[in-house]
C-alpha cells in the first residue's frame, strides 16, 4: 500500500483544481493519526477520485440524476441494486456521491464478510471508506452520522446470470432494521448499465468456496465493456417518521420496509431503462 504522503502527492497530480477544492471538506472523523477508526484516509479518497476520473467521465460516461435527494448531513442509507460480476457499480456510485453531493459526502460501502479478508483489496477498500458487513460496524457508522452504501441483494445480485439481468433478487432486511433503529432515511438507488459490463460464461462454485461465497462468475470478456452507466436516486423513504426504534425487531415491518425499498429501486431501474436508447449510449 502507498503511504498517505505518496497517495496525496499522486492525487495532487491527478485531480483538477476544481475537484481539489470540492473534496477539501468532506465529513471525516479523524481517530488521531489522519485515519478514521475503520481505516479511511482522506488522501485515499482524493486518490480514488483522481484514479477513477477517466473511467467515470469517459469510459462509463456516468449520467447521474437526483443526487440532491441524498441528505446533506446526518446518517442515511443508500440502498442500490447490485450487478455486473465485479463491484464496479459500487465504485461508480461511490464516485458519483462524492461528485454530486454538496458538501461532498463519502458513501461508506458495506461489504460482505469475505472482502476484508482479501489481501490488498481489503486494505485498499477500507482506506476508501468501506467496512466489513457486521451489524456492529453499521451501527457505529450510523452513530457517527455517516452515509452508508448498501446493496441489499448481496452476492446473489452481483453474480446473477445474464438472463436474469435487471431482475432484482431478494432484498435482505438488515438495512431496514438499521434505518429504523437509528431513525435514518433510506434513499433508493437504481444503477443501470452495470448488468451489461461484464457478461459471464458461467459461475464456478469451486472458486466460490475459496472466497467463502456462493460462486465466482467467469467473465466472457477480459475487461469490462464501455457501457453507459446511469445512476438514479429516488425520494428518501422516511422510515424514521413512520416507525419508532422499538419496531426494529418486528420481522413483518422489516420485510415490509425492505419490499418498499425494492419496489422503489425497481421503479428507478425501469425509468433508467426507458431513458436509454442503447447499452452503450
Amino acid at each position, binding site marked *: *500500500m502507498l*503511504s498517505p504522503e505518496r497517495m496525496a502527492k499522486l492525487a495532487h497530480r491527478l485531480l483538477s483544481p476544481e475537484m481539489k477544492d470540492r473534496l477539501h471538506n468532506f465529513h471525516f472523523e479523524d*481517530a*488521531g*493519526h489522519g*485515519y478514521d*477508526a*475503520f*481505516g479511511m484516509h482522506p488522501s485515499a479518497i482524493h486518490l480514488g477520485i483522481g484514479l477513477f476520473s477517466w473511467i467515470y467521465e469517459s469510459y462509463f460516461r456516468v449520467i447521474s440524476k437526483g443526487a440532491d435527494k441524498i441528505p446533506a448531513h446526518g446518517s442515511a442509507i443508500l440502498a442500490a441494486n447490485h450487478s455486473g460480476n465485479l463491484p464496479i457499480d459500487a465504485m461508480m456510485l461511490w464516485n458519483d456521491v462524492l461528485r454530486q453531493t454538496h458538501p461532498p459526502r463519502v458513501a461508506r460501502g458495506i461489504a460482505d*464478510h*469475505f472482502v*476484508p*479478508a*482479501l*489481501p*490488498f483489496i*481489503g*486494505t485498499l477498500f*477500507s482506506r476508501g471508506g468501506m*467496512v*466489513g458487513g*457486521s*451489524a*456492529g*460496524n453499521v*451501527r*457505529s457508522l450510523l*452513530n457517527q452520522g455517516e452515509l452508508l452504501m448498501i446493496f441489499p441483494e448481496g452476492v446473489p445480485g452481483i453474480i446473477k446470470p445474464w438472463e436474469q439481468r435487471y431482475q432484482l433478487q431478494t432484498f435482505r432486511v438488515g438495512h431496514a432494521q438499521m434505518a429504523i433503529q437509528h431513525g435514518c432515511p433510506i434513499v433508493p438507488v437504481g444503477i443501470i448499465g452495470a448488468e451489461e459490463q461484464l457478461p459471464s460464461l458461467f459461475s464456478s462454485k469451486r472458486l466460490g468456496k475459496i472466497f467463502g461465497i456462493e460462486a465466482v462468475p467467469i467473465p466472457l470478456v477480459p475487461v469490462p465493456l464501455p457501457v453507459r452507466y446511469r445512476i438514479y436516486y429516488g425520494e428518501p423513504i422516511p422510515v424514521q417518521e413512520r416507525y419508532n426504534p422499538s419496531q426494529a425487531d418486528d420481522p413483518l415491518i422489516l420485510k415490509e420496509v425492505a419490499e418498499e425499498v425494492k419496489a422503489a429501486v425497481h421503479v428507478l431501474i425501469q425509468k433508467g431503462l426507458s431513458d436509454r436508447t442503447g447499452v452503450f449510449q
Partner: protein
Amino acid sequence: MNVLVTGASSPIGEQVVQRLLRDSRVAHILAVADKGVPFSIPENPRITLTEIKFKSQRQLHTLLFGLALKKSVQVVIHTSQAESANREGDSVHAHNVESLRALVKFSERHPTIRRLVIRSSGAVYQVQRDLPALISEDHPLNMAAGAPQWVRDRVEADFTACARMGLSTLQVVVLRMAEILASGCGSQMYDYLDSSLCLRPIGFDPMLNFLSLEDAAQAFQHATHTSEQGVFNIPGADTLPLTEVISLWGRPSVAMPEPGIYWMYKVRQHLRGGQFRYGMNRRRFHYPGILDGRRAMDVLRYVPSQSVSWPELKE
C-alpha cells in the same frame, strides 16, 4: 478516600499511584508491590508501601484484613498481572486468576472496601473478519481452544470479576484496556517493535489502537471516583494502521507471506527469547480491532488525551 493499589511497582501501578497522589480527593494510598520487584515511588507521607506475593491468598488476606482495614481502604485498584507471555503454569494462573478470585471474595466481606477496580485487557476479545472492527463491551470473547495461557488467564480473570457484579454491595468495575505500548506492561507489540526489522503479512494493514500509561492511569482514577459498576473499554488516543505504527517506531518493515513470518518469529523467540508470538497476534495482523470507548466516555467521563510517546515524532 483511601485507595489500595496492587502491582504498585509495575509501570502501570506506579503511574496510577503518581496520578492519585495529585488527586486531592485521595487521602491515603496503600501501594502494594509484587514481592521482589523494587519500588521506584519516592517516599511520601500519603503513601504506605508494602509488598506481598500475590499468588499467596494467605498473604492477600492478611493484607486486606490487616493493614488495609487499619487504613480504612475504600477502593482497591487491582493492576497486578503476570505480564510475560513466556511464563506459563499453575504459578502464573494463581497470580492472574486465583489471586483475583480471592481478592473479590475478601473484598465482598471486607468492612471498609466498597469498590474494586480491575485491570483487564482488550486481548480478551475475539478478532476475526466477520466481527465488528469497532469492539463494544458485548463483543465475543476469545474462547479459542488453542489460545495461550496469557490470553486464557485474562479471559478467566475477566469472567471471574464479571460473575460477581451486582451480587453484593461491592461495586466491581472491569477496565478492558487497549494495549499499552510500553515496557513492562505485557505488550506484545512493544516486543514486536523492539526487533531491528518488523515482518508483516503481505496485503494486510489493519487498524490498531494503543493506550499510553498516562491514559491508563486516568481511566483508573475516573473509575475510582464514580459509583457506577460494569465493564468498560478503555481505548487509547492512537488509532493507526500497522505500517504507520512500525514507521512511527522508526523500524523498517518487510511484507511477506504468512507461514514465513510465523517461522521467522518462532526462530527469533527461540534464539532471543522475546515475548512476541506471531501465532497469538495473527488475527490482529490481518483484521482491525479497535476498542469502542463510548461507554467509558459516557459513564466514567474517560476521554483518551495522551498519545503514546512515538520515537519518530519525538525527533
